[in-house]
């Protein structure tokens, strides 16, 4: 059956061979056949299977004589598959993929309809396994800005980043360190993103993680560094989903080739790695996972940090970072759950409040003048008002907190009527003009 399928639909052009395996048989399946779920048919009962292995397992159950148990085909040649989509690079036999499942996934991802949607963030995927993988990590990712603030939401991270003071400083440093050759400011800026994923990262996942970050800034690809920069911006911003298709295995190779020195200023010396281990501790972002990681990883992490600080003013920035971390620690303990944002502005949060209060005082004093302006109504109501006041109290109109407030003002009224600002009703108007921040009412 399988041979029949191939005979009907395969085009094996002469003269074209797969790049890695010249002997490989190039198979071009139609989209329909590619996506067919039961390509492998049992010749005995006609049952269909998704994979050849499953078919073979099934055939064993038919208790075939020994001879027929073997594969009936000729010697098995390595098969490679091309993408049915004509405009795709993988349509060409030299770019065929060796794995049937792989070409299926590729076809779906690139040319297929995105039927699977994440419930949390409504991101869509064409391949179910991609969607599953994403759902596991969605929402668990953390985005860390240079200023030290951590976000669980990408959109708030981005909006924060655009207006963050760390951005303003960083680009100033970038232009100062302009001896980066052949690297656009955008690329350099990308380096400084700390992509802090879930704490446990091991083996190949880690490799993919890093490769997607490191890919754009590779000095090994000078020819289209701009494109890779943008792509790098892409892969930095997107999560490390498996749907970063077949670039992944390329990246793994790249990563091993990469020299950790790559991101550092070529003219700068490397501070000892232990310095950076402690840095992580101060930030408190990465906990013990440094030890769980590949041997190569700590140095890769540290180069990331390194590049953040490698330029003439690096001695100051390390201190500044430590200070910020200390601030972040102190403010986060003092503020509420929602103040991780405020924490990024460190001590400024408190000073903002006092500045706001001070200006409020100024403004309210200004407005007292408005109320005091009208001479017409001064002292008109005098006695009547005091009578009103006692009856009002009795009526218990106010919530309990008000009563206390009224009591206090009553004292003021009887005691110091002469000294107070008079309003148009002839009564002191403290409640609006008074500069006291009455948080006890809240």
């Amino acid at each position, binding site marked *: 059956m399988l041979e029949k399928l191939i005979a009907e639909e395969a085009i094996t052009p002469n003269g074209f061979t797969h790049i890695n395996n010249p002997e490989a048989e190039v198979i071009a399946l139609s989209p329909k056949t590619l996506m067919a779920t039961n390509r492998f048919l049992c010749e005995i009962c006609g049952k269909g299977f998704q994979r050849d292995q499953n078919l073979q397992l099934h055939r064993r159950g038919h208790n075939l004589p020994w001879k027929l148990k073997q594969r009936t085909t000729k010697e098995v040649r390595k098969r490679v598959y091309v993408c049915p989509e004509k405009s795709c690079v993988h349509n060409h036999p030299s770019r065929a993929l060796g794995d049937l499942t792989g070409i299926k996934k590729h076809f779906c991802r690139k040319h297929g309809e995105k039927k699977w949607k994440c419930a949390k963030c409504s991101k869509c995927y064409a391949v179910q396994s991609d969607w599953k993988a994403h759902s596991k990590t969605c929402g668990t990712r953390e985005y860390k800005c240079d200023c030290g603030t951590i976000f669980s939401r990408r959109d708030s991270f981005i*909006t924060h980043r655009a207006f963050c003071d760390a951005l303003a400083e960083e680009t100033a440093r970038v232009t100062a360190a302009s001896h980066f050759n052949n690297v656009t400011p955008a690329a350099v800026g990308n380096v400084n993103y700390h992509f802090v994923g879930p704490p446990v990262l091991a083996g190949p996942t880690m490799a993919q993680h890093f490769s997607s970050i490191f890919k754009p800034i590779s000095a090994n690809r000078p020819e289209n560094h701009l494109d890779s920069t943008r792509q790098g911006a892409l892969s930095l911003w997107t999560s490390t989903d498996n749907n970063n298709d077949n670039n992944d295995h390329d990246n793994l190779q790249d990563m091993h080739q990469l020299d950790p020195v790559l991101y550092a200023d070529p003219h700068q010396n490397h501070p000892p790695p232990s310095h950076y281990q402690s840095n992580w501790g101060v930030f408190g972002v990465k906990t013990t996972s440094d030890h769980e990681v590949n041997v190569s990883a700590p140095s890769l992490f540290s180069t990331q940090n390194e590049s953040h600080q490698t330029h003439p003013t690096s001695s100051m920035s390390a201190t500044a970072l430590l200070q910020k971390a200390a601030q972040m620690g102190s403010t986060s303990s003092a503020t509420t759950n929602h103040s991780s944002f405020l924490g990024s502005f460190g001590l400024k949060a408190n000073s903002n409040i006092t500045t706001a209060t001070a200006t409020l005082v100024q403004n309210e004093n200004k407005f007292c003048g408005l109320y005091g302006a009208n001479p017409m109504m001064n002292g008109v109501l005098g006695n009547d*008002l005091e009578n009103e006041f006692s009856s009002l109290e009795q009526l218990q109109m106010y919530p309990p907190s008000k009563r206390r407030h009224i009591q206090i003002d009553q004292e003021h009224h009887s005691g110091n009527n002469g000294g107070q600002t008079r309003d148009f009703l002839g009564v002191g108007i403290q409640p609006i003009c008074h500069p006291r921040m009455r948080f006890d009412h809240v």
Partner: protein
Amino acid sequence: MDHHQQYFSPPPHHHDSVSANTWPSVLLMEAAHAVAEKNHHRLKHLMWLLNELSSPYGDTNQKLSAYFLQSLFTCIMDSGDRCYQILSSAADKMLSFESTRNMELKFQEVSPWTTFGHVACNGAIMEAFNGKTKLHIIDVSTTYCTQWPTFMDAIATGTDQTPHLRLTTVIAAKFCGAGVQKVMREISHRMEKFARLMGVPFKLNVLHHSGDLSELNMKRLDIQDDEALAINLNGTFRSVCSHRRDHLLSMFHGLNPNILTIVEEEADLNMGSFNGFEFLKGFQECLRWFRVYFEALDESFPTTSSQRLMLERSAGRAVMNLVACSPEESVERRETAAKWSSRLHACGFSPVRCRDEVSDDVVALLRRYREGWSTNTAETVAGIFLRWKETPVVWASAWKPI
């Protein structure tokens, strides 16, 4: 004293949000009645009473009472226009990049009030710009360009080749203060840097226009024929003088945009002058609306928050503007979605349906905030609503010229 007793009978003890029965609403409506009936004696009583109970630093009731009392007083003193101008220029002097940024971003962190409109409109604009390589967005909004970083992210990552983006931000205000100009300069720098970081070819032009938005010279927008055009009006259409709104829409129609997005707050505040019956109706709606807003703020922010205070004082100025300023000078006259829609239809626009992906994005957005927020599409009018505890508060919709 008898009629006073009768007058001051205690309102029912309601602590829920049935707003009409709360003591500020009762007292303030009584005061408004007294104003309309020119009953000075009673008015004085009420205002004295409200004065005693008010505080801009207290609970929602006390705050509402404070701002409304101040506005009512200014109204009867007939000094609304001047007072509003003083308040606005004082606020402008206090403006700084840090305080503005902190206020906007904190607000967006704790409440979807503004992010709702951003997500909905960005989704619609992205769709309209699909496949285009040169984009021009005319941005007339009150959110200091905080809508655009996520948009830039979307075009940088969602398309194979990042298109060129030109952004023209229009700040139209009766009194174009130096403070806002300074803030916008800093914002420009940040946006340009960020665009470079994102790898988006970007140009930002900030236009300051003093006067009514409908009097803006369209030539200043520098429309280019080879660019796809989007016009984004976020919270600014209400600032246009009531009888000039249709004219402005016609002018926008003339620019032939690919899409026009509009975000407005759902309230019926386009009331008449303060002598008529319309004043009472408008005043009541004003009370209702700002109560919703203050309550939403109160439940979104932590107890003591300087950012919330800034937002409340800005709302207080809006109340002043609505209650005390002449209709020609008023810049806060919100209309309902139904009214905006009929204007848009009349001016040659037809609604663009909100895509499922966009409404999913909005639902995902709301999931990240506290309880109480929801979204829905209305059967009778285009666009989608943000609702706070079942009350529609913000409306977002997209239109294209036919």
